[in-house]
Each structure stands twice: as C-alpha cells, then as structure tokens.
C-alpha cells in the first residue's frame, strides 16, 4: 500500500459556517495502481489530491505515504517527500517561463542537488520519452499546450517518483494532445509501475485508469 487515507477531514471556516471540503475520507492505493478520482466541481477531488501530495494538511485524520504519517513531518521533510517520491502534473502545466524545456525538467533534480552532467543527461532522456528532445531549448511560451504538458510530465518524472499525481492533466488540451498525454501516463504505469492518481471530470480520461473513485461533497461514494 503506497498511499492510505484514514478518516481525513479538511474543514474551512467561512464566517460562522464550517465548510467540509473533505468529510471523513478513507481510501487506499496499492503500488503500481492507476486511479481516477472523479467528481463534479467542488466535490473535493483536488483537495483530496493535494492531501495525498502533501501540499495540504488534513484538519483531522491521517495521510500515510509509503507507511509514513505525513502529519508528523515538518515542512522540510514534507518537501523532501514531494521531491523524491511524488511527481505533480497540473492542469495549467505550471512551467517556469524563464527556463527552457530542458531546464524545467532539470528543476527537481537541481533541488535535489544532482550534478549538472547527470541531470542534463536524465532531462534529455525524459524529454525523449515524451517525444520532445528537439524542443529542449525552447521556452514554454514557444511550445503548444500539449507540448508544455509533456514537458510537465517529464519534469514530474525527474527524480524517479513512485507516485504521479495529475490534476486534470488534459483539462486544457485538445482531444488529440490529451490522448498523447494519457498514452504516456498509461505507458509509465504499465511499463514502469509508476502509481498514478489522477483527478478528472472527464469520463473518457477516467477510462484510462484501472480503478475509479467517485467523490461528492467531500465524501467518497464509490
């Protein structure tokens, strides 16, 4: 079991009201699984993803990643966990515009302290996997949406993460680019055993996953 959530709550106080973004969520993810979390807007799916990715802390309950209770980790330890174990793919790609495609992919390795030679080599390999080695010196503004998302995938894979978290990875892409991206993710899961947890509202995208988890109003309903 690579990820486990035990009765997780995320409560926001809005004036005198309490908003339950997550309302007692429990779930388990096995190593090597690919899961699609589906739900309408405001269902708490992104909140759930952020919880798993250690970007956010639960108000109550536990989030365990690789058996480690993340509530007991300080900021530095959480950062390290994100850096080494988890890869993020965002809906809006979130590439650094002042860096080239290659440098964007290198970024997590820079934060890890990998040597220049090593990280350049690996970054080029990763760009090759996503089919963008010819565009490695281009800046994000010179790439299409699909290409940017592929760079983002390469970046997410930089430090060999065991888990890939994808928040609406095809949300901003046309159908064809979306398919290319999902193919890459599927290959990563099947051929390299990377655990994939993706959030989507698109059933066609959810089809790519082995398992579906439905969430509504902060509660898992499936």
């Amino acid at each position: 079991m690579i990820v486990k959530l035990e009765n997780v709550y995320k409560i926001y106080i809005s004036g005198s009201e309490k908003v339950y973004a997550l309302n007692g969520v429990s779930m388990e993810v096995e190593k090597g699984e690919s899961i699609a979390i589906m739900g309408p807007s405001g269902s708490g799916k992104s909140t759930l993803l952020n919880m798993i990715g250690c970007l956010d802390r639960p108000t109550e309950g536990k989030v365990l990643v690789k058996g480690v209770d993340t509530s007991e980790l300080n900021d530095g330890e959480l950062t390290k966990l994100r850096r080494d174990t988890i890869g993020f793919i965002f809906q809006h790609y979130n590439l650094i515009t002042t860096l080239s495609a290659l440098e964007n992919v290198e970024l997590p390795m820079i934060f890890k302290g990998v040597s220049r030679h090593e990280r350049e080599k690996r970054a080029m390999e990763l760009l090759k996997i996503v089919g963008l080695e010819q565009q490695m010196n281009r800046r994000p503004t010179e790439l299409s949406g699909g290409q940017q998302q592929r760079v983002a995938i390469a970046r997410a894979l930089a430090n060999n993460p065991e888990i890939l978290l994808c928040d609406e990875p095809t949300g901003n892409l046309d159908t064809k680019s979306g398919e290319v991206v999902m193919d890459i993710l599927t290959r990563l899961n099947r051929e390299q055993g990377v655990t994939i947890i993706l959030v989507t509202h698109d059933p066609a995208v959810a089809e790519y996953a082995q398992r579906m988890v439905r969430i509504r109003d902060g509660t898992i309903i499936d």
Partner: protein
Amino acid sequence: MYFELAKRNLMRTKMRSVLAIIGIVIGVMAISSIGIFGEGLKLSVLENFQDVANEIIVTPSFSAGYMSIDRATVSKIEKLPYLSLVTPLKNKQALVETESKRMYLLVYGIDQNAVDELFEIEEGSAKLRGSCVVGNNLAERLKLRAGSKIVVDGKEMRVSGILKEEGARFDINPNKAIFISENDFKEIFGESGYSMIIVKVAKLEDIERFKDSVDKLINLRGEKIKVFEMRTIIERITEAFAQINLFLIAIAGISLLVAGVSILNIMLMSTLERTKEIGVMRAVGASRQTILRIFLYEALILGIIGSITGGFLSIFGGYLIEMAILQSAKYLFTTATIVSILEGIFFGLITAVLSGLYPAFKASKLEPIEALRYE
C-alpha cells in the same frame, strides 16, 4: 543554477531592475564622492600644517604666576641636542607711526637666524640690525615698502624687508607683525624675559623626549613653562574633519536608504507576481531555504551591479566636486579614495541585501497550496 534563475528573473522585468540599479548607483556615488571630497578637503587644509608637525610652542605658565621665560630656561632648552631649531621670542604691543598713520601693533624681538628660518621675504632683505621686517598685510595697510621709514615706540627705523603673506599659523601671525633685532628690542623696551620659544625637533618621536626633559630640567619644582605640541592641532583638525565627513556621508546615506526602499518595493512586487511560480517550485521539491536563496541572489545581483557601477562613477563625482570647490584634484588618487570607493560599494551591497531580506523571507514562507491557488 540558483544564480542563473535569479538573473533570469531580473531580466524578466528589465526596466524595473535597471531603475533599482540606478538607485543604488546614485546612493553609492553620493557616499563615495563625498568621502573622496572630504578626504581631499582635509588634506588640502593640513597641507598648510605639515611642516609644523614637529613644532612645539613653549610659553610661560601664566597660571603659575610666570609672565615670561628667563634666559636660564632658554639656555637649558638650547643645550638639548636633539632639537633642530630653538627660537626664543620677545614681543610687546607698541606704538608704531608712519607718515600717515599711527597704531599699536605687536613688535617681536627675534634673532636674525630665526627670521631666515621661519619666514620668507617678498621684498627687500631680512636684515634686522637697525632695521625692521614688516608683515605683508601690515605693509599693505600702512603703505610700506622696503626702504620706508617708521617710528617704533619713538625710535626711527627703516623697513629692510616685507614678508610674504602666509596662511594660518598657530605659533605666530607674521602678516600683521613687525620684527626687530633682540638688541633693538632691548634698547627700546628695556630688559625683559621671553614671551615664547618656538622649538622644532628633528624627529617626531623626540616630542615626548622634549616633554620629559622639560619636566625634569625646568618644571621640576613647579610649572614654569607650558609646552604645546603643534601636532595636537593637526590631530584635532583631523578629528574635526573626520566628524564632518562622517556627517556628510550620513546625509549622503539617505539616498542609499531611498534606493534600498526601492529595492524592497520591487522585490515585494516580484514576490507577489511570482506567487504561483513559488508554489510550483515548492511543489516540485524546493525548500524554503532554496526560495530564500533565489530571492536574495536577485537582491545581491542588483546590489553588485549598482554598487560597482556607482563606485566606479564616484571617481568622476569626486573629481568634479574637488575641482569645483578646491580647484584642484591632486588629492584624488590616494589610498583614501580607494577606501571611500570600497566603503560606498560595501554599503551599497549591504543595503541591497538587507532590502531583499524581507521579501525573500516572505516568499519562502508561502505555503505551497496557497501559492498554487493564487491567480
């Protein structure tokens, strides 16, 4: 690579970065130029006093009841082997009359050798016997020339020479005085003690030695004479200039403060604009220290470029000020100039880094999830 990131971030908003740098340049220039000028001013003033660093003025101790210095004391001092000059002087206010004017003036009785040693003649000769030598300002005022006749306390004397005008002196003001021989002085005013002795030591280290000798040989049983080192004046002048200079630099420092506020503003704006980017970096593994470093590097780069440019340009600034006020830039290329430039650069760098500290700290404290949500 963090430096590279910082550099590229600054290039993203070129105009803003350039304006911040200009602020630092102006601040550093202000501090360094004023420092350079202040040093030049001090050296220019001290130039007049350099030759008197080894001079000591001996006067009678009025507070101990001594009105003059006796011959015996003068002889004791003259016998000290390490002195390069001993000039005892007598003086008295006396009525001096010319063809058109009459006034009371200070008349000095002095040894012939001493006149040659201490002063410079502009017109005529420095011959004292039976004649007198007149100070420059006085000669102008009384319309005297070499060869003119004046009456000193009833004795007719010929002016043998006019002295060159001198700048400020602390031992004696020759510009407004009349100098006659010791014999003539005795003839006119009668026997009297000496009013002061100008002493010069061969080496500055001997000043303390002289003070010791005076304590042991002359002032043993009571303070007969007072000893005043000219170098004390030089030290006081140097201290005064240092304080004035410091004050001026502090005023100049205000401009650097303004530059610092400008950097603070720019970097706070930058932090806000890049909130999402910071969130992304944190999400992919950047620690708080990494974010802090990147932002501090940005402030440092602005500081380095601004300070070095400002330091370099301050040479011109210092040159312009010195030419405008001192009409000379001969003090420009000294060690002190380099020190002033380095000081300016140092303060420029410190200002930039300190100004960048708060924004960098703020950026590093952003929670990844909040930063990522920022639009």
